[in-house]
């Protein structure tokens, strides 16, 4: 994978220096998904498969336009279809492109114990490095969006890379390129945020969609994928988009206080042993006892 212009700023399970830790922060890249102009054609699903070299998956019709229930290790981009009854009784189809959200504060990375299996680049992309992945699945527990998926054949985790290979070469992600309605946009986080807010304002003021707004959850430090929703107060209606996602407390505790408690405990242990040595001297082994060893 080309990483020509990608500088790593965060590494999972890593002690020691991070290559990009000291560099000036690069501009954050961002996908904007305007759910109000998505027609559910799934061209982005196909573009994602083709760019990433995945082939046919046998799917089953399940009383829905949705291709499969959830994203899969080899299916990273899925439009979630939800029939939604409005207050006036009319029905609309809410469609949301589901994929990795590329959190600024990625729970997967925090949860990952394998050195270098998950990295975050200076442009904000969170990427899995399968060569370093140990397949433990801890990233699943760290993700509030249910994104990392396990390939049982290779015992590795997979998810959307935000086309880090394309982005590093100055191209937009494959899904963005394929969108026929222009509901998908790609650019810097600041630009996308502006565009999204402008669109939401337009929906509120010109179309009377009063609850239109932008989904960019602060609980995970904001995301590298943001949505314009008709009803930002009810993101759950869009195929279970969490209202206020956070990195689970277990992961936070495990990687935060627990880690320091562990470190302290370990340090304490070493200290205790050293003090013991100075106080009582080396432990002596009686050779005859050892030789007999209780074994007749």
């Amino acid at each position: 994978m080309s990483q020509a212009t990608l500088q790593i700023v965060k590494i999972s399970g890593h002690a020691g220096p991070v290559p990009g830790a000291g560099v000036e922060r690069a501009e954050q890249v961002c996908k904007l998904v305007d759910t109000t102009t998505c027609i559910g054609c799934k061209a982005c699903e196909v573009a994602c498969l083709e760019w990433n070299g995945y082939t046919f998956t046998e799917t089953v019709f399940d009383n829905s336009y949705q291709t499969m229930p959830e994203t899969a290790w080899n299916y990273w981009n899925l439009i979630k279809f939800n029939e939604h009854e409005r207050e006036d009784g009319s029905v609309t189809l809410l469609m949301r492109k589901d994929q990795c959200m590329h959190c600024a504060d990625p729970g997967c990375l925090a949860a990952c114990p394998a050195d270098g299996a998950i990295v975050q680049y200076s442009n904000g992309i969170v990427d899995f490095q399968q060569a370093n992945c140990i397949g433990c699945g801890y990233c699943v527990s760290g993700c509030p969006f249910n994104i990392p998926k396990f390939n049982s054949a290779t015992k590795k985790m997979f998810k959307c890379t935000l086309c880090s290979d394309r982005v590093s070469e100055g191209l937009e992600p494959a899904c963005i390129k394929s969108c026929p309605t222009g509901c998908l946009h790609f650019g810097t986080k600041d630009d996308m945020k502006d565009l999204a807010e402008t669109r939401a304002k337009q929906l509120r003021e010109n179309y009377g969609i009063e609850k239109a707004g932008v989904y960019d959850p602060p609980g995970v430090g904001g995301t590298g994928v943001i949505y314009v929703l008709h009803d930002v107060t009810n993101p759950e209606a869009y195929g279970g988009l969490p209202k206020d996602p956070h990195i689970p407390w277990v992961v936070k505790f495990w990687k935060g206080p627990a880690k320091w408690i562990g470190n302290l405990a370990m340090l304490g242990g070493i200290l205790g042993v050293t003090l013991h040595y100075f106080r009582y001297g080396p432990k002596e082994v009686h050779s005859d006892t050892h030789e007999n060893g209780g074994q007749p």
Partner: protein
Amino acid sequence: MTLQHPRCVYQLLKQQYSRYTPEMVERITGIQKDQFLKAADLFTSVRKDGDLKKVATIMYAVGWTQHSFGTQIIRTAAILQLLLGNVGRAGGGVNALRGHSNIQGATDMGGVFDSLPGYLKVPSPADTDLAAYLKRITPTASKPAPWDSFNYWSNTPKFAVSYLKSQFGDAATKENDFAFDYMPKVDRNYSWTQIWDNMYRGSVKGMLAFGMNGVAIGPDSQKNIDALKKADFLVVGEIYPDETSEFWKAPGTTPEEMKTINTTVYRLACAGFAEKDGSMTNSARWLQWKNVAVPTPGECRLDQDIVSDIFLKVRELYKKEGGKFPDPILSLTWSYTNPQPSLAELAKEINGKALADLTDPKTQQVIKRGQQVPGFAWLKDDGTTSCGNWIYSGCWTEAGPQLARRGTEDPSGQGIYPNWAWSWPANRRVLYNRASCDPSGKPWDAERKQVWWNESAQLWVGNDVPDFKPDSHPKEHMGPFIMTPEGVGRVFAPLGAFADGPFPEHYEPIESPVQNAFHPNQSNNPVVKKLSTPADKYATPGDGFNIVCTTYRLTEHYHYWTKNNPMNVQLIPEPFVEIPVELAQELGIKGNDKVKVTSARSYYVAKAFVTKRIKPMMIDGKKVYQIGLPIHQGYRGIQEDAGRDARTIANRLTPTVIDPNAYTPEFKGFLVKLEKA
């Protein structure tokens, strides 16, 4: 104009539609009165307080056309847009959204039986010579008229003669009426459903089907399958084996019956869209050239090469063996670089060229013999020009292929993009754009000027190419609708313009669960004819068929084609029937249950998609259910071959009923029964 005369169009219009009250709309359509009024208020609000700056558009697709009264629906839209002043204006108009990338091109090029390229009417047996033909098809300006008419169709003889020259070249001379006698004279309806009907009846003996899966397209697929069983031969040019080329394997055909089918089927491997160059015309009338992306695989050949070879072989046989009337075949111009012409060469032929040195009397500009003409204004009716399609004249000039242009500049900022591709006619982006100005020639919206009258130059100029007589001073009071003999838009359609009446009227589909609320004794379009073979059965609610069914396409699939592409198949793997929750509950149907849909013709089996999105309708106080099914699956494709669906075609259900003007089948409303399979 006072608009007060009781027989004037305005008063007749008011009288006709005074019957269409919001209450009546609710009775007929089930759309609640307040909802209808909300929509009507919104659309007409563009002219609120006399504002003439705003524009509203109407966009439609086959949901409006696939009815036995489809043309009347489009006419209604046109009348509404004319009344609101939304025609000839950027962002206005009545816009057809096509289901295929080149449907507009097919129609422009005469891909229908009743028109030649450029919408020239096809000759009939009554046209005994060229003069009679031209007299019949060339309109004369209506006089007296409140507006003067440019009546641009008065140039028809130039376009028709140039077309004949493009077909028969040197064999078309003034003395022999430019070979008019070589043109086929169309004596009856040869539209899509009629061809199949004729084959079913045994008078059509064979078919060449290129890129067209006739069995799946329907209507009444089983009738089409049975028709092919009676044919002598079938040639299919395709990139996949399809339902048509394997019609004898249709479900329900027994091995014994298969042995009795004597149709010879020739399956020719053709090129896919990415393997061909050529142009496609979109519904904004832009001709856009594309290049070859990948070479044809294996033994596949380009469609045009195959068609050329068939023609050359037929011509050889005529040369050798003669025939009843070999002249049209032997005289057809075929002076291409290769025996199989390239599409670029054909595009140049369609644009037209000078066959003698031509001089413009006004500007003294000269076009040399053999040069491409710059546009249709140069075409002549004396045999000195050749042009395959007058409306496309200008697409490939001496300056090169205009249709391959890729200029992205938009100087006016109105989205005109005059240097992107090429738009017929004459690179005009908005038709009838004279109507974007007031009678004095000033744009209705000074901030978004399309064209205007330039007093000092004494010419119409603009950001777009004026669609008008360029030097007609506004004081001359020429009507903006230069293609009508009246010079004005046709709110009232004159006699002969349509098979139906002058104003659209509401009719129920041929198969409807209700009677027409206006005139129950004439519920359906009176000029629609039902077909009469044993396969043509039509249902009534009295027979137990009381659910309305409609068919449609999905964004995930392209007709009957992408069911061979794994990428599309995984998106929508199986056929389904969308059923309202309320109906599903009544019938005890749950989502994913297998259901059987039966019409008077045949049946269809698929999984149930129980949805809240299709609601029951209250039509004239009666609860009416509607179900819908996508058309994409059949009996040849990835999932079908794997035995994962019932291998039935949606169009087995649909009736052979057509709109009397466009001959479009009524796919959007017919009657069925629904049950658990």
